[in-house]
């Protein structure tokens, strides 16, 4: 009997994302009749990609590494402002060179790099703590980053970049203007770039999870003392997960920043961190595919609820509470489990016969 090899879970994830991307592309180009994307939905495409990257990267910290982080938006804002700074600087300093792709790649790389550095700096103190204390310190760092960005001023004059801290009087053209944020950004983000970033994130995170390091990270999550006693370097692996997660969030932030003509630090407050955490928890903690689906559905959902007008966030909140209650209701859980068991038993049998 030939052995039937099920396609790996990761393959299904990649295939699903690519398929949805292609469908969206077709819908955008108007090749599917009767399936037109509304304007507001079109505007949501890049944010969806951004939030998928945010949710997947946060899932690396919360689900795989087991550390509740409430400051993920902080890394996003570092990435966003670095990305915008790099892109705008290149635009003003070298106006003759008209290469949007290079500017975009430079912005994403710089966003990821600086958020990664912020991840290292924040990780050193944060990872000494555990549980709710770790959560509150990440929250604190998120707020500190937001406050600091409100005090930062950058301007460009010729090819010189001027920096001011709490000092708005800079010569040249302002790029980042303290509490007013960055204005007049030349939009570079496209859905295609977003898709590429999502794929990069998935490849990085899924390969990390299935590697030796990933197994070490999960071992530390499940039992830190046991993992330590078999010789795993706990600090190193926790740091690895934290920094990768921060760098990916930074890239997402850079893409987000370049999707708008202006951004302020207020956009990355505590609520944004919480929103991404909601995606992760509803998608399933530690379940990467779940994060992708939850981020997509929950970014689109408020748009879908637009017909309810003022009631839409109310409905959103009620749905969130009900989903959490239903997911933890013993009766519903048992019914779902037995249903799942039945379905999977069936498919397993079919698999044997094939």
């Amino acid at each position, binding site marked *: 009997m030939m052995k039937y090899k099920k396609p790996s879970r990761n393959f299904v994830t990649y295939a699903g994302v690519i398929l949805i991307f292609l469908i969206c592309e077709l819908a955008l180009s108007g090749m599917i009749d009767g399936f037109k994307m509304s304007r507001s939905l079109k505007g949501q495409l890049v944010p969806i990609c951004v939030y998928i990257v945010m949710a997947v990267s946060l899932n690396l910290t919360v689900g795989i590494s087991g550390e509740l982080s409430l400051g993920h938006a902080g890394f996003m804002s570092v990435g966003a402002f670095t990305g915008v700074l790099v892109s705008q600087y290149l635009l003003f300093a070298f106006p003759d060179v008209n290469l949007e792709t290079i500017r975009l790649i430079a912005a994403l790389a710089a966003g990821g790099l600086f958020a990664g550095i912020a991840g290292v700096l924040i990780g050193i103190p944060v990872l000494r703590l555990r549980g709710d204390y770790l959560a509150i310190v990440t929250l604190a760092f998120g707020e500190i980053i937001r406050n600091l960005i409100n005090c930062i001023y950058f301007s460009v004059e010729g090819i010189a970049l001027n920096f001011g801290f709490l000092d708005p009087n800079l010569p040249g053209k302002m790029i980042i203007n303290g509490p007013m944020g960055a204005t007049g950004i030349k939009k570079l983000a496209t859905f295609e770039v977003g898709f590429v970033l999502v794929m990069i994130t998935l490849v990085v995170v899924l390969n990390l999870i299935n590697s030796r390091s990933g197994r070490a990270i999960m071992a530390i999550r499940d039992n830190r003392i046991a993992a330590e006693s078999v010789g795993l370097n706990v600090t190193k692996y926790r740091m690895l997960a934290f920094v990768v997660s921060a760098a990916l969030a930074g890239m997402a932030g850079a893409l987000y920043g370049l999707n708008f003509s202006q951004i302020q630090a207020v956009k990355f407050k505590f609520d944004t961190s919480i929103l991404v955490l*909601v995606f992760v928890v509803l998608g399933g903690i530690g379940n990467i595919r779940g994060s992708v689906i939850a981020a997509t559905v929950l970014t689109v959902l408020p748009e879908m609820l637009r017909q309810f007008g003022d009631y839409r966030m109310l409905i959103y909140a009620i749905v969130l509470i009900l989903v959490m209650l239903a997911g*933890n209701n013993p009766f519903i859980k048992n019914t779902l489990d037995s249903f799942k068991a039945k379905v999977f038993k069936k498919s397993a049998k079919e698999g044997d016969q094939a």
Partner: protein
Amino acid sequence: MIQFLSYLLNGISLGSVYAIIALGYSMVYGIAKMLNFAHGDVIMIGAYMSFCAIQYWSLPPIAAIVLAIVVCTALGILIERMAYKPLRTATSLSVLITAIGVSWLLQNIALLIWGANPKSYQSLVNFGSLTLFDGQLHITSETFITIAANIIIMIALTLFTGKTKMGKAMRAVSEDKGAAELMGINVNATISMTFAIGSGLAAIAGVLLCSSYPVLMPTTGSMPGIKAFTAAVFGGIGSIPGALIGGILLGLIEILGKAYVSTELGDALVFAVLIIVLLVKPTGLLGKKVHEKV
């Protein structure tokens, strides 16, 4: 110097509000082991209730405060029964997300009822102000009453948890739920009671906060909520004197930081001090150190 004294008093007054909110956080965390993110929004509901009582129903200030306390206490019990009780055995993250859902729900209900425009809150405890040093130092009655309320609440709660049967039951449940149940303590009633007290305190905090800082919006409660939570962690979560010290220190750092360092960096300073404290004493200033068992 006199300027400094005035900042100091303002700091202690703001810190007292934080301390009262932090108490609610701390008690709920101690007993239910959950971060109740909806606590800040209960403050906001309390402030709106007292606002309505004065503005629309023209009740006397005392009645407005009592109404706010009653509504918030009922709200606290209701939230606990509807949203948190079914999740007693769930993971802490599920409970956290539910609390966030409740927080959004309260904010949006407030948004629908009272609208997004900020309301200017008329102080409920304004009895003029005291002028010292030839008119150089003004101390408002709000400052006095906030600090006095804080002291009274702290003493009352310390006595309550130390002397009364219910208070002892609370401490027992927060230490070991299973053992407390075996001793005949009604765990569910005790937890409901904790939520009731925490929410009642939140109503008082809401009235005091808006009397000193008279801008009322659906999101009024969220930042003080987060800061009070920080204060609770700062002082050692689960401890009543810890909440007092944490709250007052936080208020002082915020006001003095804003006055002497930079207005923009006031909040950043608060959180930076929190991080430093947690790194030196990972369970907060007065927190108990729990040894890890293998």
